[in-house]
């Protein structure tokens, strides 16, 4: 059996204490501190990225011309109204017909559905590209020459609000001039559901979208409600006929 004397072990006490101190210190102090530090560093990097994004967004926002933006938004809101505005669409159709030289005989509004803006999810027109826009349909009966009908079609293609002729049926009945039934789809688009959280990056307008804007900015507005029919504004007794 080995027999150690205390005197012989005494010189090794300091290194042993140092090792013990390092081990205990590392376990109790350094290790948790390193874990916290790694996390803090990770968070700091994340926060710096976030700050960089915010700075970028702020400079982008400051770079936007408020007046120009308001004007542009006004134009696109004229083209794509944010709600089902049946009277405005009716006025536009009437004005278009008038400008084309057609006489409007009747206008039937399709299934309007709910007219509250938030719940106004109507049938949408799916294009070949897959994009769908909510729309209202109008069946319009007009009388006029073929040339006027062509004018009507051409004007509708570049008119505000955005409308599309889906079907045109021309028939010659008892009158000299042809009568046409035109199926028109008038589009609208609800406002975005979320109007930009601070953290979200600012969406930039692409070159293709700028082209679209320059195209639609030349659209002729036919939606003034100035010529709406003389509608009664109310009656004295609600329950009277």
């Amino acid at each position, binding site marked *: 059996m080995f027999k150690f004397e205390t005197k012989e072990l005494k010189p090794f006490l300091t290194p042993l*204490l140092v090792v013990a101190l390092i081990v205990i210190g590392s376990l109790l102090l350094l290790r948790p*501190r390193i874990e916290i530090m790694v996390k*803090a560093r990770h968070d700091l990097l994340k926060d710096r990225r976030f700050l960089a994004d915010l700075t970028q967004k702020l400079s982008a926002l400051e770079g936007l011309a*408020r007046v120009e933006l308001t004007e542009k938004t006004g134009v696109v809101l004229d083209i794509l109204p944010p709600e089902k505005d049946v009277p405005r669409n009716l006025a536009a159709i009437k004005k278009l017909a008038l400008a084309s030289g057609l006489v409007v005989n009747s206008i039937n509004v399709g299934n309007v559905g709910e007219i509250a803006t938030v719940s106004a999810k109507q049938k949408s027109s799916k294009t070949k590209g897959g994009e769908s826009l909510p729309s209202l349909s109008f069946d319009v009966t007009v009388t006029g020459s073929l040339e006027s009908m062509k004018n009507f079609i051409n004007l509708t293609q570049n008119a505000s609000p955005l409308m599309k002729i889906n079907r045109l049926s021309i028939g010659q009945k008892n009158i000299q001039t042809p009568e046409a039934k035109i199926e028109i789809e008038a589009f609208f688009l609800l406002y975005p559901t979320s109007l930009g959280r601070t953290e979200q990056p600012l969406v930039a307008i692409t070159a293709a979208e700028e082209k679209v804007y320059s195209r639609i900015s030349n659209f002729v507005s036919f939606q003034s409600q100035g010529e709406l029919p003389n509608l009664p504004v109310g009656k004295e007794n609600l329950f009277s006929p």
Partner: protein
Amino acid sequence: MREQIDFLHGERAAREKKARVLRLVKVGSILILLTYCLVVAAFFSYSFFLTTQAKSVNRQAEAKKAQIEALKDVESLQIILKQRLSSLEKYFAGQKGVDLPRLLDYFNQTTYALNLTELSLSTNGAVTLSGEAANPLVFGEFLEIINNESSGELFSQITLSSLDRKEDGSYSFSMALQAK
């Protein structure tokens, strides 16, 4: 001269060597401990630096957020503009409908000898046509024109849905065409 014989010389040398090694171990241990303390201090300093930086970054972020909030109306306008332009871009890109005025012109020019009763044009290209022809020759001429055209650029499919001879010798017909 008196000479001394050191009988413990070897043991002393070993003892001194051992004492040197032990001293070295002791000094080394203290040095390691000091280094360790320095490392710990460095870690703590870096940790403090990170905390300070995080606070500073958060302060700056809050300031930027406040500035962005102040420009919320501009951002909203931009979002609405983007949403609508993006939808319109896709809408226009998907608009590959037929040219209705062109079709109207075409039928206006080709049906001069016929008495059309109905012409229906759809933007998806479906065309239905019905009318009357005074005699088979007139109708045949129209069919020839339209068949020639079908090989061209206007129609991809032409179907004669009905053809009836009336008592007065005229013909009533209906056709379905698919415009390209």
